[in-house]
């Protein structure tokens, strides 16, 4: 199994400089995939998820081209070959 997780430039200091991570563990959901990333790179997922394990308000996580906000959140299923993309949301002031 191979799930790709694309990391935004701002977070590559926490992914040892790697822009695309590959999760090879058997995972069924986006949440599982991020948990697999957290096991290796907890400082990275700290920036994506709150301490309650929720996606931060101004972070978007996509499966393919669709935000998981419009799918099933962290329970959105993934399969071999899925690409997960972490993107800072359009926000600010």
């Amino acid at each position, binding site marked *: 199994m191979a799930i790709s997780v694309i990391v935004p430039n*701002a*977070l590559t*200091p*926490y992914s040892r400089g790697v822009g695309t991570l590959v999760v090879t563990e058997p995972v069924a959901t986006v949440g599982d995939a991020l948990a697999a990333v957290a096991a290796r790179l*907890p*400082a990275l997922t*700290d*920036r*994506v998820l*709150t*301490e*309650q*394990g*929720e996606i*931060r308000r*101004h*972070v978007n996580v996509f499966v393919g081209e669709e935000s998981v906000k419009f799918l099933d959140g962290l329970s959105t299923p993934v399969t071999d070959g899925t690409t997960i993309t972490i993107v*800072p*949301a359009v*926000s*600010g*002031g």
Partner: protein
Amino acid sequence: MTTSSRSSGPAAGDVLVLVGTTKGAFIFSSDKSRRKWNVDGPHFPGEAVYSIAYDSRGGRTRTLVGAHSNHWGSTIRLSDDFGRSWTGPERQAVRFPESSGLSLAQVWQITPGHADEPDVVWCGVEPAALFESRDAGASWAPVEGLLNHEHRPKWMPGGGGLCLHTIVTDPKDKKRMAIAISTAGFYRTDDGGKSWRPRNNGVRAVFLPNKYPEFGQCVHKVVNHPSRPERLFLQNHWGLYRSDDWGESWQDIANGVPSDFGFAMQMHPHDPDTVYIVPIQSDEFRVVPEGKLRVYRTRDAGNSWEPLAAGLPQDQAFENVLRDGLTADSHDPAGIYFGTRGGKLFGSADAGESWQELADALPPICCVKAAVVA
């Protein structure tokens, strides 16, 4: 993360004015004359800095910054070389336990602890909670007695969120300290944080049906002087108060101010009767009255107040100063400094008698803290 720009750091006796803005932190420094200032920054560009502190205990020269990325959350970062380099924890160090159901939104206050416990540092956060560090700011743990307080379900967020923004210590008693939360009011512990009781007797809550509840006030800032810690001064969401008994009772001291609404409040470093505030027009119109930027000072513990305006704009100056936007250094005469929402930074080297503009176009200023390098 590393940020650098200065070639040489401040020396003993120099003054630091640490400025947190909505777009990063700036470090102003000067010698004791406080006539010419160097500026260094922005540090953490794009991140909001609502809390900043300088800790000189234990021989260190540590700057602590609570920086908030709108995307990636809040982190306390440390510098031991006046901002030339910064260290931050890999993991988010200020974390609520999973059992609390809470997540950190913002670090609102960082306060060094007692002189004889040089590794203890406190921070106040949103949602309202107090965290303690026992390693000078590297790691943090929540103060359970406040986290699990029975009043918590009834605390309501103010305009800035449900934030613990003020920490008041007692140099004479390590087990006694107090905090203020908007909107929950003023709480004190006498047992090192195990238990906390509200002390709001006499403090108004104009926005509640019961104007004098046990708790629920929107306290904006509380200060005390280390030589007389039991005497407290409180700037309320409408109301200006003094307590002479560590908050057991409060007396109205809005004697001669143009408004008793405001946020910022600062003790004089050497005189427990002298306090500075910046009155604001009203809750609905949060700018200084009459478009005149004036600091007000009492030198008799609130029995009377005088405006200090020499060198400050007095025409069309619709500025606001936030709760941590006013500070003092420890020289004599004292340096007084404040920053505005409009991005202006002012300083006085003569305890407020006259002012000079140190910066006129910073991002909106959230907090200003001054220190003298040991």
